[in-house]
C-alpha cells in the first residue's frame, strides 16, 4: 500500500479521494490554483501545494507542475479524479516516467478509449454492438454533409476527444449541419484542445445506461451492475440511479458480459465505465468507455456495498480483486442528484459567488459528497458542480421519498442552485414510474413551472418584519451558531402557548 497519494483535482471529488486516503491510513496531498486556496480539498488534505494560476491550463491541467510537485513531496501515486487530466494518456505516461503510479488504467488503454473514433474501430473488431456512423473524424463540411445523407438524419455530432457533452450537437436537418459542426468543433477545441468531431446516427430519446467495471492488474475483470443516466440536459448528466428501472437480472448479465469483453479487449485495469445507448426495444449499443472514476460512482457503491476509491487504490498497489463476479450482490436502490451552481429559472446560467448560508441534509439513507461550505466563494473558472446528494432505500420508491425529504432540508443561500429542479423531477409521475429517456428532462423543462401557490406570503411578511426588528435591535443581529439569547430571541414561552398547554391538559 502507498504511504502518500497526491490528488490532481479539486472540488467534491478531491475531498472524496482525500477521505478514502485517510480511511486507508494513507497521507493525502492536495494541489490548488490561485483561486482555490480556501477550497475544501485544501482544508481537508494532510499537505497542500500551490500549482499555478486560476486558468486550469496553468494549474490543474499543468502536467509538468503536478508531476514535479508529487516528486518533491514524495507522493508515490497520483489520483486524477474525474475531468482535468483523468483521461489524459500523456499525463499517465508522465507519471510512469517519473516513477509515480497513476491510479487508473495504462496510457495505452486511455489512448485507445480517449479517441472515440479509434475506440469504435477497435470495438467493431471485437464484435461489440455499435451505433451506425463514422469511425473517423469529419474532415470537412462537405464530407459531413455526405455522410449525414448516407446514414440519414437525425445525426449526432460528437467530439472525438469528448466527454460530458462538450462539443456534442444533435442535428435534425441538413440546414442545421453547418452551424452545428462549427460550434461543436469550436467547443471541442476549447474544452479538449482537439477539435476532431465525428458523426453518428442519432437514436432519438434512447436510454443512457452504463456499466461499472473493475479490473485488476492480474487479468481479473468484474462488472458491478449498471447505472441509469438518462436524465440529461445538454448531454450533461443531471441525475443518475442504480439499478436501472428497466434492467432485470438477465439483461444485466448480458450487458455486463459485453462490458467485461470491452474492458478485456482494451487491456484495461482499474475502475472504468462502459456507456451504452439503449433503444425502446432494449437493444443496446456501445457508446464509449470512460477510463476513470465517474461522478456518479456513489450510486454503485451504495447498492453493492463496495468502496470504489478504496478499490482503485488497492488495484493500483497491485492487489488482486478481493472478490469474484458471483460474489457481487445488488441490494436496494440509490439515486444521485448533482447539485450545480446554476440558475434553473434563468436557462441554467452558471451562478458563482459567495455561499452566505448553508443548511445540509442528513438522516437515514442520505449521503452527501460536497466540496462547498458556508462562507466559501464558488470560483467562476471551473465546472459548477458543488455537491452530490445521494438517496438510498430498500427500493426505488423509498429512495425517492428520502431524497425529496433531504432536498427540503437542503438550503444553499447567496448563489443559485438547481435544487428546485430535483424536486420537480422526483415528484414527476413519469419519473416515479421509471419511464425515462434522454429527452425526459427537456420535455419536463418545456412544461410550465408549477406555480408555488402555497400561500405562505403572510408568514414571509411576518418574518421579514421580525428580521428587520432584530437587525435594528442592539446586539441581536449577530447570533453565533448554537447559542441562543433568550431575552432577545423570543425564547420565553408565549402566553398563548401556555394557555394552549393548559387547555390541552384539561
Amino acid at each position: 500500500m502507498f504511504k502518500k497519494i497526491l490528488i490532481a483535482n479539486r472540488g467534491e471529488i478531491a475531498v472524496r479521494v482525500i477521505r478514502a486516503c485517510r480511511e486507508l491510513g494513507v497521507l493525502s496531498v492536495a494541489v490548488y490554483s490561485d483561486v482555490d486556496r480556501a477550497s475544501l480539498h485544501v482544508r481537508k488534505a494532510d499537505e497542500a501545494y500551490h500549482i499555478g494560476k486560476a486558468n486550469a491550463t496553468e494549474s490543474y491541467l499543468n502536467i509538468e507542475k503536478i508531476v514535479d510537485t508529487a516528486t518533491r513531496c514524495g507522493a508515490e501515486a497520483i489520483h486524477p479524479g474525474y475531468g482535468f487530466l483523468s483521461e489524459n494518456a500523456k499525463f499517465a505516461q508522465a507519471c510512469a516516467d517519473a516513477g509515480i503510479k497513476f491510479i487508473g488504467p495504462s496510457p495505452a488503454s486511455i489512448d485507445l478509449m480517449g479517441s472515440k473514433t479509434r475506440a469504435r474501430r477497435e470495438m467493431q473488431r471485437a464484435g461489440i454492438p455499435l451505433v451506425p456512423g463514422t469511425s473517423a473524424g469529419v474532415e470537412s463540411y462537405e464530407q459531413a454533409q455526405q455522410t449525414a445523407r448516407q446514414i440519414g438524419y437525425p445525426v449526432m455530432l460528437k467530439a472525438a476527444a469528448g466527454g460530458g457533452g462538450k462539443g456534442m450537437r444533435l442535428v435534425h436537418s441538413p440546414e442545421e449541419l453547418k452551424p452545428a459542426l462549427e460550434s461543436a468543433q469550436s467547443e471541442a477545441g476549447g474544452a479538449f484542445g482537439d477539435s476532431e468531431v465525428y458523426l453518428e446516427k442519432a437514436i432519438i430519446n434512447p436510454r443512457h445506461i452504463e456499466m461499472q467495471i473493475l479490473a485488476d492488474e492480474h487479468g481479473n475483470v468484474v462488472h458491478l451492475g449498471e447505472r441509469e443516466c438518462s436524465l440529461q440536459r445538454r448531454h450533461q448528466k443531471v441525475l443518475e440511479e442504480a439499478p436501472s428501472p428497466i434492467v432485470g437480472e438477465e439483461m444485466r448479465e448480458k450487458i455486463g458480459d459485453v462490458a467485461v469483453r470491452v474492458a478485456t479487449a482494451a487491456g484495461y485495469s482499474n475502475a472504468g465505465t462502459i456507456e451504452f445507448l439503449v433503444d425502446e426495444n432494449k437493444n443496446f449499443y456501445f457508446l464509449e468507455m470512460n477510463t476513470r472514476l465517474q461522478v456518479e460512482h456513489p450510486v454503485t457503491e451504495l447498492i453493492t456495498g463496495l468502496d470504489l476509491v478504496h478499490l482503485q487504490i488497492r488495484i493500483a498497489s497491485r492487489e488482486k480483486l478481493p472478490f469474484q463476479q458471483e460474489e457481487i450482490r445488488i441490494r436496494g436502490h440509490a439515486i444521485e442528484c448533482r447539485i450545480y451552481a446554476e440558475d434553473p429559472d434563468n436557462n441554467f446560467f452558471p451562478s458563482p459567488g459567495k455561499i452566505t448560508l448553508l443548511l445540509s441534509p442528513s438522516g437515514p439513507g442520505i449521503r452527501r459528497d460536497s466540496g462547498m461550505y458556508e462562507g466559501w466563494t464558488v470560483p467562476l473558472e471551473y465546472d459548477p458542480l458543488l455537491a452530490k446528494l445521494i438517496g438510498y432505500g430498500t427500493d426505488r420508491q423509498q429512495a425517492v421519498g428520502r431524497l425529496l425529504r433531504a432536498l427540503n432540508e437542503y438550503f444553499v443561500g447567496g448563489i443559485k442552485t438547481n435544487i428546485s429542479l430535483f424536486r420537480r423531477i422526483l415528484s414527476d409521475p413519469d419519473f416515479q414510474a421509471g419511464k425515462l429517456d434522454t429527452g425526459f428532462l427537456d420535455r419536463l423543462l418545456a412544461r410550465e413551472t408549477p406555480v408555488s401557490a402555497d400561500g405562505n406570503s403572510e408568514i414571509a411578511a411576518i418574518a421579514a418584519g421580525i428580521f428587520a426588528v432584530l437587525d435594528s435591535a442592539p446586539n441581536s443581529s449577530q447570533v453565533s451558531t448554537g447559542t441562543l439569547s433568550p431575552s432577545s430571541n423570543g425564547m420565553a414561552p408565549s402566553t398563548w402557548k401556555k394557555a394552549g398547554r393548559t387547555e390541552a391538559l384539561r
Partner: protein
Amino acid sequence: MNYEVRIDDKLFHLELDRSEGQWHCKLNGTAINIDAVLTRTNVLSILLEGKAYEIRRELTINGLHLWVGSSRYSAEVRDPRSLRHRKDGTVGNKGPQMLTAAMPGKVVRVLLQEGAQVEAGQGILVVEAMKMQNEIKSPKAGRIQKIMVATSHAVNAGDLVAIVE
C-alpha cells in the same frame, strides 16, 4: 414598530412589538399569535398557532428574499418613518434595450454584426463561463445598434455588451 412589507406583489401592513421576549404581531390589523426564535444568523423558527415554519433569509445584489419551505419570496421592508424610498425597478420593453453580461466570463463568439436585424430571443453573442457556453439573446425584435465587445474579450457581471433598438 410599523412596517410596510411587500412580498412578491402583495403589500402588508405589519405592526410588531416585543416585550419580555414575547412578540405581539398585527398583520393588516389582525392580531396573530406568534413565537419566533432566531436559531442562527438568517434562520428564523416561527410557530404560528402551533404550526412550525423555518424561514431563511437571503440577501444578494438582487435584493432580499425569504424562503419558506422550498418557496422563495422576494421581499421589501419599508419603515414608513424612514425617508428611504426605493425606486420601482421594473423596466419596460420599449426603447433601446441594454444587454448586460449576467456573470463574469469570456466572449467566445459574436454571432451578429452591428446594424443587423434581430428577432426576440435570437442569440447575439456567446459567453463562456464555468466551461459552459451561453448565448446572450435579444430581449426584443429590432436592430442591433451597438456591440461593445469582441471575441476573446473578458466581461464582468453587469457589463454592457450590446444595445438593441
